[in-house]
């Protein structure tokens, strides 16, 4: 009696498994694989030479470099600020901590377009800051600093969010133990705190990179779409697309796609290493 019941349950489980996996596969094929294959198909529709020409186009190269620049700078700033913010929030208690944590999450909840507009209003012609900025010769809106600013804003929470749970879980015992033995702040950070959050930090950096490369909305508002000057790769792709240059648009998309795949591989490699180390 009991045995037949067990078998029935297992069969149900099997059917459920098939349905769940099947649904996932169908979904992935329709929403991800098909479009990706289509991108490549269109990118190569004029043959290899057409693809090469589109990818090595002067403006395409400039857009790629600008995207990389914005990504690298955003990554550097966010790593530093994410570390500071996560450290401050987890190791000290102070007034307004809750507000700070909520504010840090703001970029995730606010639409990127609005984020872009906020900066246009803050640093643009209407702003009270504008005369001072102009006097100092600093151009933010419709220039590279604006693009970087937008990218930093949109990607800020990623590293912070990865670090906070790890630092919270760790507690302060190990740090206290090291301090009691006479270790300085930097020794404690280097030997105790950093190894602990290394994987979380790298993982946050990967997420930050991925998001920074693909950012469209906020950058679009701040960029001004100056070809070869303030066009990032996603903006450039849109421009080509609007001009009915499908081969060019899709060829450039494939560059972003390659970046994305590299980031994904990095991510799973990091996850795997982080896991094995945790099991040690």
């Amino acid at each position: 009696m009991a045995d037949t019941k067990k078998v029935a349950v297992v069969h149900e489980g099997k059917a459920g498994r098939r349905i769940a996996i099947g649904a996932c596969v169908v979904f992935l094929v329709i929403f991800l694989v098909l479009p990706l294959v289509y991108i490549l198909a269109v990118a190569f529709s004029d043959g290899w030479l057409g693809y090469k020409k589109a990818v090595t186009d002067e403006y395409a190269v400039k857009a790629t470099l600008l995207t990389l620049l914005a990504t690298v700078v955003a990554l550097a700033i966010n790593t530093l600020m994410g570390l500071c913010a996560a450290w401050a929030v987890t190791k000290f208690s102070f007034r307004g901590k809750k507000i700070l944590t909520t504010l840090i999450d703001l970029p995730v909840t606010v639409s990127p377009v609005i984020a872009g507009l906020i900066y246009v209003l803050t640093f643009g012609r209407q702003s009270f800051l504008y005369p001072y900025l102009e006097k100092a010769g600093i151009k933010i809106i419709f220039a590279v600093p604006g693009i970087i600013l937008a990218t930093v804003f949109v990607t800020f929470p990623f590293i912070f969010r990865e670090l906070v749970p790890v630092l919270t879980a760790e507690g302060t015992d190990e740090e206290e133990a090291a301090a009691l033995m006479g270790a300085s702040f930097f020794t404690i950070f280097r030997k105790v705190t950093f190894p602990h959050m290394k994987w979380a930090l790298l993982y946050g950096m990967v997420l930050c990179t991925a998001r920074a490369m693909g950012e469209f909305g906020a950058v679009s508002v701040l960029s001004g779409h100056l070809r070869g000057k303030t066009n990032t790769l996603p903006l450039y792709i849109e421009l080509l697309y609007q001009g009915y240059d499908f081969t060019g648009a899709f060829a450039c998309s494939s560059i972003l796609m390659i970046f994305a795949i590299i980031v994904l591989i990095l991510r799973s490699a990091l996850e795997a290493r982080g896991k094995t180390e945790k099991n040690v």
Partner: protein
Amino acid sequence: MGSNEKSTIELRHIVKYYGDFRASDDVSLTIEGGRLVALLGPSGSGKTTILRMIAGLEHPDGGEILIDGQVVNDIPGSERGIGFVFQSYALFRYLTVYENIAFGLRLKKWPEKKIRERVFELLKLIGCEGLEKRYPGQLSGGQRQRVAFARALAPSPKILLLDEPFAAIDAKIRLELRSWLKEMITKLGITSIFVTHDQDEAIEVADDIVVTNHGRIEQVGTATELYTKPATPFVVQFIGHSTPIRNFTEFRSFFKGQENEIGILRPEYVEVKKITEVVRYSNSADIGYVRDIIFRGSNLEIKVDIHGNTISAIRSINEEPLEIGEKVWVFIYRMFVIDDRKVELRENASLREDSLVI
């Protein structure tokens, strides 16, 4: 090994607040050099706070901490000559056992050769030879505790502080580690203080026990002193397995009593006999009924209903077995009588008469 000078620790009128909570309330305490002292008390009684203040991990809001006669309030913990074993051990999990033990020595810029000698000397002492390349995550609970102990001892501290050193270990290994730790500390002769909420642990391991309650020190003494001469009502109730008896005057031969007095009874003061057995002081024994019998391995705990109370007694497994519901003689040798402030040990009146006869 270790330093031969034995450090004394003195606390003078220490006060410590956490917000409105008074964690230490005028704590004064002297710990002689080379003693192994337990800070014993219920959770929230301020025992860990005292330990952390001696270590310099917390700063008192008032009073003085002296080590070897020198006020150390403004000296950082790292310069007080202290080894600290954390409750969770706080081993550096990304460093090997070797590097964990060597950590403090590297900070003191010991030459590599001396570090090596010291680490292996300690590994031998704690019986963990061959584990030096392991990470803390690869050790058992007991091994972790030993390594934490070795790490604390590595720079030859004058004082060893241990915060609930056995709390995170399962019961069986805990007993083994207790005697191991006592042996180690006695061998090294280093002044040591450990925090515990487990009285058995304090009694077994410590030379002296400091009982804390509500941020104050209730009593300092050896285990025997705490048992036989409890200084405060709290100590009477906290030490041993005590049952409060409100109507103790109803018991035979315990007739005197004030309105606000409570009797405190311990199992070892109670004798339970079968009605058929011979009872020496039958005129001062009470009648009770067996409510429950609990097998404790080496003996039996008998719970007896008597005068509206349920009291515990110990009975040897060699004696004739009792049954639940059985009517029995209950003879009470002595009990503590407490009011709000004072403690008094009262003997069964018939014992005194007996001694007079002799």
